[in-house]
């Protein structure tokens, strides 16, 4: 059974059909790319998958569970985590606290225990701290644990956003233009980070990206969107040599 199964997904904003009859199947463990020209509806697809928008038609199934009508919070609990095109970190909080926010729905204690630091507080906080440090160590951010997120260099901010998403223990990770604004070196590091996520966590990833070097380098399958419609779908090599894709997006 596919991990993510999207069928006939559509949404209109007024007269504009932003996403039209969108279909996609992602198998467990795949690294899937969503590409297309600006305004094609890629981020809208992400927003539909994460419950920011509710689709007019269609169905989204995650691991067999119907999540079409669920809100953002429920969808995160169901197992989809995401990063954002424009970085959205908790800027006034430290690096480790950013990760701990991601962990907070997995390691719980009551509000009363929060206020009085009694009961499970100490034990669970220790677990949260250990797990956060484990994640930071995996992603080589442990040295910056007490740095304010806003003081991190750009590349590490992107990385921290991925760590925070991973902290929610997702089944599917959505990355919205992770390489946007990066120089070639940073992009190379990002590709290593993504490889690490796949290796360490056996993660299924769906990413939006414009950097063709990154897309052709790491994605196994692609869907090309154009004006809200699927232009082409399949193995990366075949898609990138498809004459229609070349014409609409890559340029002749």
């Amino acid at each position, binding site marked *: 059974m596919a991990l993510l199964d999207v069928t006939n997904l559509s949404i209109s904003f007024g007269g504009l059909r932003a996403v039209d009859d969108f279909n996609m199947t992602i198998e467990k463990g795949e690294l899937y790319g969503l590409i297309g020209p600006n305004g094609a509806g890629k981020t809208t697809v992400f927003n539909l998958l*994460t419950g920011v928008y509710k689709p007019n038609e269609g169905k989204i199934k995650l691991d067999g569970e119907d999540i079409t009508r669920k809100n*953002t*919070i429920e969808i*995160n*609990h169901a197992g989809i*985590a*995401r990063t*954002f095109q424009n970085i*959205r*970190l*908790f*800027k*006034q*909080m430290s690096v480790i*606290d*950013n990760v*701990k*926010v*991601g962990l*907070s*729905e997995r*390691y*719980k*204690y009551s*509000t009363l*225990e*929060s*206020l*009085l*630091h009694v009961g499970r*507080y100490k034990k*669970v*906080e220790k677990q*949260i701290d250990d797990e956060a440090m484990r994640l930071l160590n995996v992603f080589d951010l442990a040295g910056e644990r*007490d740095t304010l997120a806003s003081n991190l260099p750009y590349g590490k901010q992107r990385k921290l956003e991925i760590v*925070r*998403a991973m*902290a*929610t223990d997702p089944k599917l990770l959505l990355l919205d233009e992770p390489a946007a604004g990066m120089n070639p070196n940073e992009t190379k590091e990002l590709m290593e980070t993504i490889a690490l996520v796949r290796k360490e966590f056996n993660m299924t990833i769906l990413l939006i990206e414009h950097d063709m070097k990154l897309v052709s380098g790491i994605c196994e399958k692609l869907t090309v969107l154009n004006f809200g419609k699927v232009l082409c779908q399949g193995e990366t090599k075949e898609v990138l040599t498809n004459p229609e894709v070349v014409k609409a997006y890559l340029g002749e």
Partner: protein
Amino acid sequence: MHMDKKTKDNLITYGIVIAAFLVVEVLAMTGKLSSHMGGLLVPMTYYAIIAVALNLCVGILGELSIGHCGFMCIGAFTSATFSKVMADKIPSGPRFFIAFIIGIAVAALFGFLIGIPVLRLKGDYLAIVTLAFGEIIKNVINAFYIGVDSKGFHFSMENQMALNLESDGTMIINGAMGITGTPKDANFMIGIGVLLISLVIVLNLINSRDGRAIMAIRDNHIAAEASGINVTRYKMLAFTISAAIAGSAGVLYSHNITTLTASSQYFGYNASIMILVYVVLGGIGNIRGSVVAACILYLLPELLRGLNKYRMLIYSIVLIVMMIVNWSPKVIEWRKRTFANFGFKKKVKVVK
């Protein structure tokens, strides 16, 4: 046990409050404290408490409320009503304790109810609506007439006559004249105790799962939602706790004076703004700063009364100086360097 920086910071905060309490007690015992100064002590604690409450709302939750004196007003009137009715029936210790529970609970309830519409708004709009609610609370209480006689409670929103009290009845809330004869149960020690409890609760909250969720919402509510944080729940939680603590300040307020009126001077938006000044100058999100700023800025104009004409001039200069000391990056850097030289957090350099 290894103690992290946050725990140490919190202990310093509690230490400052306890030290201040001890110094004042020693001064009082040796007779060095003037009666004027002695009268300022309890107000100082309740202003520090409400500054902590407001900082939770403004600095930690990130929502600018300028109606917090409304919650203080609710705490003051509900608890004073209880204490007046029960004045002869319960001894003062337990009575004051129950008064606290009532004042805090009702303020929290109103914080919750007002939070439902208010927290749907953002920024300036939220500030304006909290301002309006603060004024509404004050004005509604000004129109309350409550009396009690052998037949029970009487309530009116018109005038004293409309209550139809029996001859043996007593007025509890007399409209704009408020409540007179509340037992004077508050003292400096209780004030400091309540301040310490408020500090423990707020600082504990900040260093917990719930507190991190609240600060995450402040920094980016979209990302918080995408991380599975229930934004509405945590916003309501922070606002309600903030209102409850403001209510406890109100309980102290009403049990420190004999005549309680819902006047603009103490519960209007001017008072709310004054507390916001404490919070901003003490450092938004800096709980210890709020306590220190509230104490200094409350005491200063009172102690300068002798200077008469120049009082407000000096007060405004102090405001500007505090702003510079607390917020200018250069001064903060200088402050850290100076403290380091005092061996406060000295780093030992090994020269080879």
